[in-house]
């Protein structure tokens, strides 16, 4: 009986609280901290170039094999990153690539809306991954 009375008043109190669910496109929500969206490339702030050197650790760590890396010989015979592809249609946003990277060259953004018209647009190139830095703010959606 005590529980029924407690639930009764809890239900009555809920009438004056804000509902938990949101009307999706109309109402803007702030994504919880630490949630994982599309990965992005970090840039070196001095030279504004990609930090990634194409070592391929992330490709090995990826459980879905969605990362593709091509390297070329650069100045002084060093191997430099040429092309980097990420297949979003396979990616499960596990964040292993971010954890594995020794240079901290990859980072997860908060972008979660992935609807696209064609399957080809899910294959992100190097430049696409740089562009994702617009979505690294948690409340990008509300702006």
């Amino acid at each position, binding site marked *: 009986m005590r529980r029924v*009375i407690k*639930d009764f008043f809890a239900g009555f109190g809920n009438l004056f609280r804000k509902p938990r669910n949101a009307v999706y496109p109309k109402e803007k929500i702030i994504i919880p901290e630490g949630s994982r969206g599309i990965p992005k490339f970090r840039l070196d702030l001095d030279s504004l170039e990609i930090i990634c050197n194409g070592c391929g650790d992330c490709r090995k760590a990826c459980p879905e094999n969605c990362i593709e890396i091509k390297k070329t010989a650069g100045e002084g015979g060093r191997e430099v990153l040429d092309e980097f592809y990420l297949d979003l249609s396979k990616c499960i946003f596990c964040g292993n690539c971010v954890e594995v990277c020794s240079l901290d060259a990859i980072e997860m953004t908060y972008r979660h809306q992935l609807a696209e018209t064609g399957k080809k647009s899910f294959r992100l190139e190097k430049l696409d991954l740089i562009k994702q830095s617009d979505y690294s703010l948690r409340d990008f959606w509300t702006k």
Partner: protein
Amino acid sequence: MIILFRNVVYLYLILIVNIYMCSYFLNKLSSRVELKRGFSASRAKGLGYPVLKLFRYLSKDDRLNIWEILIFFFSFFIWTIIPFSPTLIIIRFENDLVIAILFYMILLFLILMNASRSRYGFIFKNATKNILMIYNFFIPVIFCISGIVLINRTLTLKEIVGFQYQYWNIIYQPLGFIVMFASALLLMKLFNITKKSTLFLGQNIEKEGYGFGRLMVRISYYSTLFFIIVMIIILYLAGWQNLFFINGNIIFGIKFYIIFLILVLLDKATPQLNDYSYLLSINWKFLIPVAAVNFLLTIVFFILRNIYGII
């Protein structure tokens, strides 16, 4: 004749508006209690929800049977004798309380007959069980009503309201009020008006479709619930008596919706009762003994006051 016609129009307008409002509030309240938003497909905070539901019922073709037509007739006819206000009575009887109860029993009987014509064993079994249980829950209600009749010494609803101009009957009969309220709650739970019932609606709809007949049955559920709520207001909460300077009719509406709100909240706070033996034990071990004790106390009080003149 014109006055009668006007009264009929007023009465059915009140009924339709109340069914609309209750349908809307049920949706909103029951979802807001769970911190959800409720139906909001249409604009204006989902005001079109009951209309949409109506069209959902009408969208499917269904053959009407005789019981559904009778239910439709009776679920409106029951309101011709129960007064919402002193002037809004269509058929005047000397002992309208008895006839109101009789009409209510007939309505329940019709719902029972309608449920028992189903081809599906599951629906037949559960629906008949439920309605027989609702008959069971009416036993304590009859005890409570007889207590009120003994106190007020009349069988006319209008006079019962008139007697409460000074003190409401709830002061004399608090136990009776509790029993009546509990039986109203259990009635609401058995008809499962707040959520999609597994017994009455949920699985039936998939098997037997919506159709106009099911809409009628749904209205009759609302009608039976409204009947109990209106009886509680008239018998215990002084019906349409003015409260300070506020008009009695407005007070009647406010009381109706407060009781309705409390019923919805209590319905949400208690678990879904599908265990029939548990329900029967609530009835026979709590409601009927309390109602009987209340009735006996009232008889003792009545004899002491009116026969021996002690009190």
